């Protein structure tokens, strides 16, 4: 049982072609992706997060375009303020504010620990929400949940304790600008 040399060479060439295409898709495309910067300036005006929600980013914030996805009914925006990650997630939700807060806490407690008490908060456009804190080894965080229309707005802010302290004021000012459908009831 043997294979003709010509067949073997053609098969080898084909195999190398398949292998190269697989490598191109699985490693080449991610390599090109990595070579391009993922962040860009977020700008100063209101940024559409998705699901009808907008926010004015903190001054000097950068937008992580690889994680930001604005859509009609939902959306995610990831800002970087220094080394602090400021994430806003909008998703359809038909429960109460307490239920939305519980859902976010459940997500947070998969890798972090809730610290301190939860207290009410409010945006400048009148959206009611709750706010709390969490921590993990070497990182501190804040979370906020708002309910607007048929969506829940989840905000998480995380970074090292010194960086978070430095950025917190600007981020809190930004969270107060969160608006649902332009502030219309």
């Amino acid at each position, binding site marked *: 049982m043997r294979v003709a040399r010509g067949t*073997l060479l053609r098969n080898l060439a084909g*195999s190398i072609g398949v292998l190269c295409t697989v490598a191109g898709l699985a490693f080449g495309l991610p390599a090109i992706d990595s070579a391009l910067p993922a962040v860009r300036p977020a700008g100063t005006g209101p940024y559409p997060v998705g699901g009808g929600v907008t926010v004015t980013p903190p001054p000097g914030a950068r937008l992580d375009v690889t994680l930001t996805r604005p859509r009609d009914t939902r959306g995610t925006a990831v800002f970087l303020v220094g080394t602090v990650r400021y994430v806003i997630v909008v998703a359809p939700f038909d429960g109460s504010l307490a239920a939305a807060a519980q859902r976010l806490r459940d997500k947070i407690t998969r890798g972090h620990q809730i610290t301190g008490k939860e207290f009410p908060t409010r945006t400048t456009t009148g959206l009611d929400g709750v706010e709390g804190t969490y921590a993990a080894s070497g990182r501190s965080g804040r979370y906020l949940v708002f309910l607007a229309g048929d969506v829940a707005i989840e905000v998480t802010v995380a970074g090292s304790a010194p960086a978070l302290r430095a950025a917190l004021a600007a981020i809190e000012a930004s969270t107060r600008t969160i608006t649902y459908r332009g502030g219309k009831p």
Partner: protein
Amino acid sequence: MTPVHPTPSWAHPGKSLLLPAFWVVLMLIAGGAVRLGLFVRESFAAYPTATLTALVLFGLYAVPFCVFVAALDYLEREPPLLLATAFAWGGLVATSISIRGNAAVHNLVAKLASPGLAAEWGSALAGPTVEEIAKALGIIAIVLVARAQVNSVLDGVVYGSLVGLGFQVVEDVVYAVNAVAVAGRGDQVAPVVATFLLRGFLAGLWSHTLFGALAGAGIGYLAVRTDRPLLIRLSVAILAVLGAMGIHFLWNSPLLSLGGGAGIFGDLFVKGIPPLLMILFLVRGVRHREADYYMAQLAALGDRRIATEDELRVLAHGHLRAGARRHAHGRCGVKGRRAVRRLQRAQAQLAVELSRARGINVPGLRIAPADWPPPPAAGVMASRTTAIATTEVAATPPAGLPHIPTAGMAPLPSVAAVEMAGLPPTAGGETAAVPAAGVTDLSGQPSTPVDGVAIGVARVAAAPVQARVLGGPSAVRWRDRVLVERGRMLALGHPEATAPLTRNGSVRRVVGGIAIFLAAMVTVGLALIALGAS
């Protein structure tokens, strides 16, 4: 040139082990298996019930697709190991490639354009390009590993659809587990069921299996139709893969979407059903071409004990085969159904074995001179198939089968066989002259010497000759099997594996099937709207 390239007799599965492509495929499948294994292990750790439900649901979901593909592949069945390889490529390799490639394309769109464009069009751009190429590579890999097994465009369709099915099943399991994670309510089954209804029912029929079938048809054409110029074959293959990409793009894109709950139905009727019908129509044509080829192998034997004209018509179509089995069940019960099923299987296998003993001018048949081999005894090797079959079956019944004397079976009048070939019967219905010096094709050109066993007598319209049809030992075995099953059917009083023409019944079944399908789709769609999954 024929639309089918039968597997040559020298093809041996073990030869694949000597090919670099085999080891490349094995390595990639092993890598994909490790990756998927890690995912399943993590999913089981986080959501055991939901993960198990997803695996079971989507595993069962693959069954009807496999049944459909098996029915497509009835006449010339593909080796199960190759079918499993195609499925594994789709499920393990193509998904692993696509997870990385898709994310990169989404990010590139976001970086080079905007996150908004990536959100709206990312899936439409990444899915067709990365996933369709990853799946097409699987079909190419199958061709590289077992070129001899890709005999027709239909084989490309079969391998392509299995690559797509593997991809679809694993992707849906990943989506289901992700849905559980996103829901954030712990180990719940509801998101899995919603994913199953949405991706399995509403989006499942015109998904990866369909795209893979289209790409497979093109690659099958490239591999099989070597009678056509390479440029044309390449163009057809590229067009088929681009077609698969186009349908995938349309399905993933926001184009033609109505949005909201009604959008489900909009997508269903505007973006789903037309490509489904188009590709099914294409597959139907490809299947008929292959069936015609194999039926010609049996028809050329001109032996009604092997297959009657009606049986040939029935054998070529899945629904008619099923109808014949039902008819036999109605007349003779389970034994009748079983006998018809075995006869159909044996006829199909005989057709394939005959095709493997390829001849010249008569596709799939090797024609021996009238005096080949030298007759062992006067009268035994008469040109009538009946005589040959009677002698050999009586002498060597197939292993494991009861001996059924065929001597009592009346030879059919030669007129039937001649009519089948559209020829006037020769004088006495017996052998006409065939050049005796070596094996000669029907145009009179000398051919290479052949070795084999006489299976029957060919009556060919191109030249008024009758000559013995040769095949290997497998062909003899299957011919004997056909005769044994025919004997069983005769004993049951059901001599022919056909059913009365039931066009009305077929129309009723098709219309009923479409009505049930549409009703199921509407019900599932409404259920999803009610659940808020739109």
